[in-house]
């Protein structure tokens, strides 16, 4: 196998992330807004750091694995906790705890504790988070005002959100085509998860080492049905054709979507809106308040020979100045309470950014298993199929059974 490894490494060399001279290399993924913010952080750090930029998660994972195989990984990489398990299990990541313990700049107390927990293995911190986002509801103030519908409040419920979405779904010119949809939400497991928790069910059977989805119960079925009803029963979200024609973010930007369930990542794009005012409201619960963690963390490659220099960049990026730059760019919910409470985060749009912080009290992470990317893709395909079922006849119970049976083998492999 060494021969294969050597051959493959040779072939992958071109794709590998090789450091230029003594620069610390940092692999990041993001949209143009996000990448621009990372560049600002690097520039402000004044440290010899070179960013390796890719556009999405899949590219980042591919680049990371091939560069590790080629023996030349980036010193640091920024990866969502949902996709870190495989790299952690194989020793590709050098735990951050020892560096944090020795740091004169950073301490555990600088971070929101509930976010740090998503990055702890056996009591030690593996990677250090840079953001603490969750899902919220973005809403178009003009559409609400024009329809005479009251804007969302902090204590609204799922049913109230659906009721308002029904009132806001409008065919304005009477041509039989909906011009404004009341709500936009991606049919994905990360969108359904908080609803399942809110209804009183668990998403998976064992939090620490899941072997299956745990959705075969009344509460979970009720939550999944409420989600499917958004399209099939109430018709408040765009159809699959409409969603394929224009993605939800663009639809909101163009004023054709009254509400959008999303994480913090859309804020930089939404700040380009001049035509109408917008704000955020909490994700409404179906039962108890619940939300799902969206967080990326800096991980240190075991094979890096510049670990100390790389950690110096982490100290800057997660320090008050680095977090301030990212917060002002709008992209992140700071993981530091001091920056989160500052004007850098609360001062810009959206006006109600404190909603993100309020959610942290009941925000939970998704499972961390090696096969999670595959489990999520398989689950998302099933959810999408049921959500956009043209017959409108998809039952939550059927979807739940399909989710459990068709991902069982993946859980077994990835636990």
């Amino acid at each position: 196998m060494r021969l294969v490894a050597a051959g493959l490494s040779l072939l992958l060399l071109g794709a590998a992330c090789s450091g230029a001279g003594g620069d610390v290399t940092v692999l990041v993924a993001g949209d143009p807004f996000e990448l621009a913010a990372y560049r600002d952080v690097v520039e402000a750090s004044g440290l010899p750091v070179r960013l390796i930029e890719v556009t999405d998660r899949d590219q980042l994972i591919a680049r990371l694995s091939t560069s590790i195989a080629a023996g030349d990984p980036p010193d640091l990489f920024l990866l969502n906790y949902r996709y870190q398990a495989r790299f952690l299990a194989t020793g590709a990541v050098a735990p951050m705890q020892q560096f944090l313990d020795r740091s004169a700049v950073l301490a555990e107390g600088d971070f929101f504790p509930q976010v740090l927990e998503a990055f702890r293995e056996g009591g030690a911190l593996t990677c250090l988070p840079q953001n603490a986002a969750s899902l919220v509801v973005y809403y178009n103030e003009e559409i609400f005002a024009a329809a005479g519908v009251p804007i969302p409040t902090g204590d609204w419920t799922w049913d109230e959100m659906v009721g308002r979405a029904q009132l806001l779904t409008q065919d304005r010119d009477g041509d039989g085509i909906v011009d404004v949809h009341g709500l936009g939400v991606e049919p994905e497991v990360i969108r359904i998860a908080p609803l399942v928790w809110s209804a009183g069910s668990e998403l998976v059977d064992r939090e620490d080492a899941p072997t299956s989805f745990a959705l075969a119960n009344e509460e979970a079925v009720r939550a999944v049905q409420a989600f499917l009803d958004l399209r099939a029963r109430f018709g408040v979200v765009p159809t699959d054709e409409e969603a394929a024609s224009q993605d939800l973010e663009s639809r909101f930007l163009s004023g054709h979507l009254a509400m959008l369930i999303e994480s913090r990542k859309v804020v930089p794009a939404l700040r380009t809106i001049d035509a109408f005012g917008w704000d955020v409201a909490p994700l409404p619960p179906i039962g108890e308040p619940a939300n799902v963690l969206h967080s990326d963390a800096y991980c240190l490659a075991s094979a890096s020979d510049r670990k100390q220099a790389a950690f110096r960049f982490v100290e800057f990026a997660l320090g008050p100045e680095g977090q301030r730059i990212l917060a002002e760019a709008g992209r992140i919910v700071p993981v530091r309470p001091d920056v989160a409470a500052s004007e850098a985060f609360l001062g810009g749009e959206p006006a109600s950014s404190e909603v993100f912080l309020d959610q942290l009290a009941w925000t939970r992470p998704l499972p961390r298993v090696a096969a999670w990317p595959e489990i999520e893709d398989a689950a998302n395909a099933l959810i999408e199929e049921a959500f956009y079922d043209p017959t409108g006849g998809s039952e939550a119970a059927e979807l739940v059974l399909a989710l459990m049976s068709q991902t069982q083998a993946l859980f077994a492999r990835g636990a």
Partner: protein
Amino acid sequence: MDPERRALWLLATPFLFGVVLLVAGPALLTLVMSAFEWDLVSEARFVGAANFRELLGDDVFRISLRNSLWYVAVSVPLKLLGALGLALLLHRRTRARGLARASVVLPAAIPDAAWALVWLWILNPLTGPLNLALQALGLPTPAWLTQPGAARWSVVLIGLLQLGEGFLIALAARQGVPGHLHETAEAAGAGPWARFVRVTLPLMAPALLLVVCRDAVASFQATFAPALLVTGGGPPPHATTFLPLFVYQNAFEYLRYGYAAAATVVMIVVSASIVWLMIRTVDRWRGGLVEQIR
């Protein structure tokens, strides 16, 4: 070794070197890797034929293989007909033939990713020019990206216009058919169809066989960019997940390089089988034709 043979070897050496380094070497590595479970990050684990056994029970792999075979069965004949028809149409000396030939070749020169993104716009179910044109003509407007059948046909459509290479080969073959053979056949009372079937087609057959073999092999890979960028392998359940996308997802998204290598080995074997079948079929057809003429 005589000087001529030595010169031939010398000329072939860079190409052979490239084939060994970029084709034979990776193919061999793929074969070896298919016997391992490997994520590139941890130690590889020998699993023998387990990856192939798992493929047998994998619904997504079965769907991908079926989709790929369907694509080859539909796309290759259509592209051959297109290339042949255009070659017959444009081989004559007519006005603006250069422009027409360039128009046929041009799509094949556009990078796959750029071509796919252009089609993402063309096939937009609500605002795309294709459906707007169909609507203006009072024709049905398929949901190209969201209805499984239409999505599969949209991938065929995207590849169909990239027939430039096949067209050039067919055009060269048509121009190589001696004019006096047609004149002789015409003098013997053969009509246009008979001249095409008895003279043009048999003489073009070796070149067309090359086009078909090349397209059959290329078709397995040609689905990758449109499936990844236009349809995303969907709509669910895996309507446009073809073998290359299956391999890509397992290798680069799920880090199952051994499993993806096993799927690639299957893809190579299936491609080779199709090409072998085609060569045999055409050989028999040509043999039968020669017998008839005798």
